[in-house]
């Protein structure tokens, strides 16, 4: 049994909120540069240059990459040999979000009730994804999720007869319908299988995978490649104004599912697919 004080959780979350929002991952920067080099027209090149310059400026000035500093999605993997001291882990996470968003000059973008819509003022509460794993460590990832892209996400409950063609059609239709709205170039997190909530959770977690890393399952890695090529043939392009760079990556997670079902969830994200993590 290892003891961890929840204050360490709160402090880590606060620091990760700021880091994730101001420091775009090197995997994404590399992919943006590579795809910029492959564009032939001036307009997509110029827009990708703006995004690259923006990321540079954000890091230099410690400003958010995007003003939509998101709803804080906190993914916490807790070793089953850990014992937390000092109070509630959930409350500690939210204290961390409050501190990070307030001290980091990040935007408070959360309303307390989806219908009454009063801003909570400090971006709490977080959306917390819990996972219990073997060991005595705690892994925390903060992934601020912007809603311009979140709103363009989809869930399709296919039937088994629709198979892989149905899966492809559902994903491509989501991208096409979204068009310029989610700030292309996009990153797609896809969850296939499980139940409807499990598919959505897998889609969200797929966004945390580094750009450039493929699914370990061969047939899924092939599907990722095929979908990425098809999306980049759509001519949506940076900012939706045409070009080859519509998506930077397609990441698919799968899980066993029911004999009657084939759920497909697509979590849409923009180039600012931000996440930062720490291991306690």
């Amino acid at each position, binding site marked *: 049994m290892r003891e961890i004080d929840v204050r360490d959780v709160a402090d880590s979350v606060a620091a990760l909120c700021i880091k994730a929002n101001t420091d775009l991952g090197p995997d994404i920067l590399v992919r943006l540069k590579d795809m910029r080099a492959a564009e032939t027209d001036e307009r997509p090149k110029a827009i990708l240059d703006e995004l690259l*310059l923006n990321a540079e400026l954000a890091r230099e000035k410690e*400003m958010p990459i995007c*003003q*939509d500093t998101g709803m804080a999605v906190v993914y916490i993997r807790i070793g089953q040999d850990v014992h937390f001291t000092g109070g509630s882990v959930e409350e500690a996470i939210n204290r961390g979000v409050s501190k990070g968003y307030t001290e980091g000059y990040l935007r408070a973008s959360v309303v307390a009730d989806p219908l009454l819509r009063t801003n909570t003022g400090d971006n709490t509460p977080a959306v917390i994804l819990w996972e219990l794993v073997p060991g005595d460590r705690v892994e925390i990832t903060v992934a601020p999720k912007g809603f311009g892209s979140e709103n363009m996400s989809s869930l399709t409950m296919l039937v088994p007869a629709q198979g892989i063609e149905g899966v492809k059609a559902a994903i491509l239709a989501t991208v096409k319908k979204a068009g310029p709205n989610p*700030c292309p170039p996009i990153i797609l997190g896809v969850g296939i299988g499980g139940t409807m909530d499990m598919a959505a959770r897998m889609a969200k977690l797929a966004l945390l995978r580094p750009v450039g890393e493929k699914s370990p399952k061969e047939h899924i890695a092939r599907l990722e490649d095929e979908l990425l090529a098809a999306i980049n043939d*759509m001519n949506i392009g940076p*900012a939706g*104004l045409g070009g080859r760079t519509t998506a930077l990556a397609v990441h698919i997670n799968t899980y066993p599912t029911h004999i009657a079902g084939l759920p497909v969830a697509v979590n849409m994200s923009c*180039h600012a697919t931000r996440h930062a993590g720490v291991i306690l």
Partner: protein
Amino acid sequence: MPLDEVERKILELPVTREAARELRAGELLSLRGVIYTARDAAHKRMVEALARGEELPFDMTDAAIYYAGPCPAKPGFVIGSAGPTTSYRMDAYAPALISLGQTVMLGKGLRGPDVIEAMIRYGAVYLGATGGAGALLAQRIVKSEIIAYPDLGAEAVRRLEVYDFPAIVLIDSLGTSLYDRETVASV
């Protein structure tokens, strides 16, 4: 800096309906002057105020509205990151404001037919700024002041002064849209 290497037409704000009618989809602009921020919650309040016959927080005649909810300004900064938000969420409110004289909308993404119809009828343009470039765009905002609904936080109405703020005409007052290409138009 690529932003300034591109040739842009300077557009002084505010813009009259006559001047708005002269802009064409695809034109690259450099905005100078006053623009008000308003997004979901502020639009809802303004349209509700109109329904009750109350005054709006600013004169809508020739007004330019930026669909944006900036980050808080760090000490020594004019404003925090301040890129555009997705515009279609304001579609329910925009025609009423255009009918009152608003000539410029600045945002990103698709617009619905009712908005485009109002733009054609009254003379208004829909401009785009690059989504996801909020840190960069904030550098072109030289003054920022909350003028209404401070309780809305990031969604409060701000009066901004911009200088050489990069924008593109996405949809003009003839209804021509830069998004109307094969893929996107067929959505």
